[in-house]
């Protein structure tokens, strides 16, 4: 086990704790850059989906994992991003402009929904955002001369400063770049006063308020950012699928996106990435398992949703901290070997808390 001796305030602030951590992330970076040389084209396509879902995961992590506000309507922001991108591209806008516009439009939608919705709490907020999701889906279906209604909309390949993104390897590098930029921005935000205000709101609104934190302002910032990131993901999603239609943005997609952050592990950036990888990899594994399992189970309809549901329930009961929590435990096991104890991560029962003021 390594111990860090802190001699400088900057050690708490900087991006990497120490050289060892920096080394591992550098290694990860190299592996990610070299991946297209190893993986076949089909798996690169899956990697692109993982990266797109990672952006969604990061956006939702900001809202659910760090600020503690739930949303069941995020598919709507994905749709706003995708349709903005499709329309702007059709108007001949360059990709760098149109993707920023996707973020801006989705963010603006988030702002408009967030202002009234964030006065609600918990389950009420979940219902309000879910209702917004329904409305958005309906609007997209009916607003035919802009969105094409049920017949959907085609997207051409991305033209990134003259480079046509015509295969999954190129798309992978583009998405990877975006994920890194977004991740850096979010890490910066979370180590600044704004990020601390988010966490404060999550853990206790009443004392956040008496620390001088403007609740409505910070909740709205979180919601807007979250929506904008989902919008960026939406734009990429549209290009990846090359065709978008309203039913791709229904409630199930919202739920899948929310599930992602729970499975990944609330309150960590790692969780968003792990969750994204999990959500994309699981259906592949199920397809693979179908051939191995006896036909009575393997050919059963509804196998995928069932497995999905079971896994979610399993996580909620046995590992509420998600994949990231499991990862931390495994890491601790090895770094403390052989002194790891089973109860180490067990949370103490929380002390009495006043709910009088809530």
């Amino acid at each position, binding site marked *: 086990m390594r111990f860090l001796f802190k001699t400088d305030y900057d050690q708490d602030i900087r991006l990497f704790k120490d050289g060892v951590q920096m080394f591992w992330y550098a290694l990860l970076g190299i592996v990610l850059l070299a991946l297209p040389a190893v993986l076949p084209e089909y798996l690169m396509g899956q990697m692109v989906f993982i990266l797109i879902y990672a952006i969604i995961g990061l956006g939702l992590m900001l809202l659910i994992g760090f600020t503690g506000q739930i949303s069941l309507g995020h598919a709507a922001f994905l749709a706003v991003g995708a349709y903005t991108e499709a329309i702007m591209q059709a108007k001949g806008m360059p990709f760098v402009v149109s993707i920023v516009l996707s973020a801006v439009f989705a963010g603006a939608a988030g702002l408009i929904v967030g202002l009234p919705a964030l006065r609600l709490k918990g389950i009420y907020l979940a219902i309000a955002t879910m209702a917004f999701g329904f409305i958005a889906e309906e609007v997209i279906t009916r607003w035919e001369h802009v969105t094409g209604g049920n017949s959907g909309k085609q997207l051409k390949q991305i033209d990134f400063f003259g480079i046509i993104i015509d295969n999954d390897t190129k798309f992978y590098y583009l998405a990877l770049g975006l994920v890194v930029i977004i991740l850096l921005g979010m890490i910066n935000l979370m*180590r600044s006063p704004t990020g601390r205000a988010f966490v404060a709101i999550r853990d206790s609104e009443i004392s956040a308020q008496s620390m001088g934190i403007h609740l409505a302002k910070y909740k709205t910032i979180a919601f807007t950012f979250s929506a904008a990131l989902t919008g960026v993901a939406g734009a990429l999603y549209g290009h990846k699928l090359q065709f978008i239609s309203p039913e791709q943005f229904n409630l199930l997609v919202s739920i899948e996106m929310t599930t992602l952050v729970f499975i990944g592990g609330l309150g960590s950036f790692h969780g968003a990435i792990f969750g994204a990888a999990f959500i994309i990899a699981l259906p592949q594994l199920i397809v693979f398992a179908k051939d191995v399992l006896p036909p009575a189970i393997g050919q059963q309809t509804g196998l995928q949703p069932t497995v999905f549901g079971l896994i979610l329930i399993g996580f909620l009961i046995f590992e509420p901290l998600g994949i990231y929590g499991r990862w931390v435990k495994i890491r601790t096991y090895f770094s403390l070997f052989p002194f790891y104890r089973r109860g180490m991560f067990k949370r103490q029962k929380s002390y009495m808390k006043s709910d009088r003021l809530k």
Partner: protein
Amino acid sequence: MSFFKAENLSIQFGGVKAVTNVSFEVQQGEVFTIIGPNGAGKTTIFNLISLIYPPTSGRITFEGREITGMTPHRVANLGIARTFQNIELFEHASVLQNLLIGRHNHTATRLWQELLFMPSVRRAEIEHREAVEKVIDFLDLQHHRDSMVAGLPYGVRKVVELGRALCIGPKLLLLDEPSSGLNPEETDDMAFWIEDIKKDLGVTVLMVEHDMSLVSRVSDRVLALAQGEMLSIGTSREVQSDPKVIEAYLGKPE
């Protein structure tokens, strides 16, 4: 101009009169304590001061400025900090992060600067940490700096909460039962700190407290409440010997 003044403060929840016509003044630099039996309205007065509840009638002025009607988050910016009776810390954050949140009202950096983590943000962060470190030294919290609040014992949480309030850099500190749940030694420490906060930091303290030995030790003046009404105001000795106060606590002699 008085430092802090509550005039004819009343609040009703439906038909329940929680606080009725309470008026008092706090002088700069004193420790002013509110005592009273359970349900007397002590915490309600704190919630009125920190604007969590709007008063039904009456007004509160701080440094000559009326604060009733302001939005709650502004109170901290005026320099009024508080702790909570049942501890309201940010559970899933470290002690250091909790204290840093106390510095929120000193934030001058903008959102876009934070997104890019400009040098100005880094400088501000280091300044915040220096300020927080002073509070950590003051309250002897060095040992717990990087611990998660969720894993800390009750007594330490109480101190962390006091520290977080001090990080605001308050002029007026509201302490809601600082000794509740503490053992005699911890209560003793708390008494020292309250005296130091008053003498060394020059912060005015307004507190609610049940432990009468702590009250008589640190308070300059005491206000006794019962059922939302004022019973007696004066030095700790005067209030404790007031027959009305004795009656409220112990009942009428036969």
